[in-house]
């Protein structure tokens, strides 16, 4: 079994009863703020588990299984990306999605095929959820011919016209303007398709966010703006960069429907996205969702992470979105540990297949250097 896979197993193993709902422990006063935060996170975990079960019971089992598979694939795939990056197989930047899987899965899997998706440079997992193969994504990271854009884009620029995945964009917030235009085109053509436009919380401070939301609400463009609040814009925390903390409320400035969602809860993300989709399909109304998660890894692979503590990361891992989803599925008696293990094995196999494909794929021919400059 590959090394990453072994490590991965440890990361998402179910929590023992002792650390989850131990009554004695909860009576004991926490000794320090970190411990208090961890206790709070655990309590939230239990609350979320209960609310997730209710949503799970209303959802098709095949879909639930696929959702869990995509989350686990995202996690395993990205862990492996980190490994091969350290081995020098991947060049340039590499921004990982670990900890945020519930957002991509909960939202993109609420779409229909003809809908559009675009996101920032943290795009590997969203690309796979929209249908680009793990081989296509990994080989792109390797800068190989078999990559989804033939090695010209790399980590930050995954695209597929056929699948409605409009990128992978490298300028913070730049895709918010582009996504607004995609939604404009959907409405112009008279379809009731929608666009999901992802960006991080730091992008909210860019002018393009405000310019786009204003136009989208003014013209009723069916764009669902999903702010993935992972708490840090590179190494600067939201508190150090934004005058207010409630991003969802910024929608009010434009009269736009908005909602705050717990990004660790895949079912909550799905429900909120479905509500936004319904509005958008009905009359083109846009929505701003603030989905709060936590970026476990650095901003990119070159991030030393000296702006936060290990305790802080640990606190958020207590509410890990995959762990939460699995516990809820189990509690709702929809899936078993055995099935979780099978899913994990499938994800490992898919990832290893992608690695093998990428290793074997040739580098792009230098003949393509000057192609695709003009259509």
């Amino acid at each position, binding site marked *: 079994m590959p090394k990453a896979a072994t490590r991965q197993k440890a990361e998402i193993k179910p929590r023992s009863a002792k650390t989850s709902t131990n009554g004695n422990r909860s009576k004991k006063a926490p000794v320090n703020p970190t411990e208090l935060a961890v206790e709070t996170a655990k309590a939230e975990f239990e609350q979320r588990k209960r609310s997730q079960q209710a949503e799970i019971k209303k959802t098709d089992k095949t879909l639930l299984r696929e959702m869990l598979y995509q989350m686990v694939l995202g996690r395993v795939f990205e862990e492996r990306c980190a490994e091969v990056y350290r081995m020098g197989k991947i060049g340039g930047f590499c921004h990982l999605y670990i900890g945020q899987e519930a957002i991509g899965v909960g939202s993109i899997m609420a779409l229909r095929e003809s809908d559009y998706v675009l996101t920032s440079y943290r795009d590997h997992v969203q690309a796979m959820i929209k249908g680009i193969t793990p081989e296509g994504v990994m080989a792109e990271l390797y800068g190989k011919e078999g990559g989804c854009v033939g090695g010209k*884009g790399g980590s930050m620029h995954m695209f597929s016209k056929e699948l409605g995945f409009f990128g992978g964009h490298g300028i913070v917030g730049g895709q*918010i303007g582009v996504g607004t235009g995609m939604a404009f085109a959907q409405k112009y053509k008279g379809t009731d398709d929608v666009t999901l436009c992802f960006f991080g919380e730091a992008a909210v401070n860019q002018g393009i966010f405000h310019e786009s939301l204003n136009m989208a609400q003014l013209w009723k463009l069916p764009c669902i703006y999903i702010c993935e609040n992972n708490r840090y814009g590179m190494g600067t925390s939201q508190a150090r960069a934004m005058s207010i903390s409630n991003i969802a409320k910024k929608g009010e400035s434009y009269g736009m429907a908005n909602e705050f969602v717990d990004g660790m809860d895949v079912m909550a993300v799905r429900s909120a996205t479905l509500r936004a989709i319904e509005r958008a399909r009905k009359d083109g109304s846009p929505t701003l969702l603030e989905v709060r998660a936590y970026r476990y890894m650095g901003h990119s692979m070159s991030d030393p992470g000296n702006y936060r503590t290990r305790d802080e990361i640990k606190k958020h891992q207590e509410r890990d979105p995959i762990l939460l989803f699995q516990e809820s599925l189990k509690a709702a008696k929809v899936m078993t540990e055995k099935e979780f293990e099978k899913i994990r094995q499938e994800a490992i196999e898919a990832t290893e297949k992608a690695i093998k494909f990428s290793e074997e794929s040739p580098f792009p021919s230098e003949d393509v250097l000057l192609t695709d*400059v003009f259509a």
Partner: protein
Amino acid sequence: MQVLTIRDALNQALREELLRDENVFIMGEEVAEYDGAYKVTRGLWKEFGDKRVIDSPITELGFAGLGVGAAMAGLRPVIEFMTWNFSILAADQIINHAAKMLYMSGGEFNVPIVFRGPNGSAYQVSSQHSQALEAMYANFPGLKVVMPSSAADAKGLLKSSIRDNNPVIFMEQETMYGMKGEVPDDEDFTIPLGVADVKREGTDCTIVARSFTVPQALQAAEKIKEEFDVSVEVIDPRTIKPLDIDTIITSVKKTNRVVIAEESHSFASVGAEISHQIMENAFDYLDAPVKRVSTAEAPNPYARNLELAALPSVDKIIAAVKEVCYL
């Protein structure tokens, strides 16, 4: 043949393309109800309505981005900047997004969009409203840059730009909107991008001019003919990128002397590029160093006399021709 102003020729091109292709729409500040800040879109909103001709808020980065996304999703936006000066606010969407989308998506997403508006000086509108920005945009692979100087060119090139499958930077000149010229009546009249036009044939000296400096170069050529009996050829590349360098080189090989007249500043300008390509391709044919006439290396001033001193003029072009011809 009809005689039209450049403004009306552009208007006709827009109207015909709106009629021809349902996916073409116009967006920009004051393009609809106001009929266009410079009246280029006059009457189009009344004819085509809110769906096709759209007044945007003053939000250049926003509507440039919207245009890029709409183009990726299959539409053909014509985005008007009230002037190219304001495009600097939208530069991220033009340069980082429109120009690179096809390449970084490995050929998946082309961006058939036209960004258009007046470029360069007007009449005493001072530093922030008088910039000729073609060199900046021409520097980025993935963008085509077009600069017409006559009514026929304006119409034919704009129609080609709208039909082109790439992002096109289409630069007009405010002081030239009222200039009249003959324009073919044919609704399918187009001029291919990347083809220069010999505006006046000559044998002794070549002036390479574009946009603002083309009428000046033609006047200068006339005066030089009268005064010195020197025959000047005037070439207008019309498209800066792709650049039809062959037509320029052919002319240089014939005349052996070159003046490049341009409205932009001289440092790192399109004229500098043309001059370099002439050196590379026709060095042995040159009887004098290539001479450039550009705008002074200062922000454009307001005072009329200072503005005239800064900009290229007929007299400055004549002086340059005399210099390369040793007159």
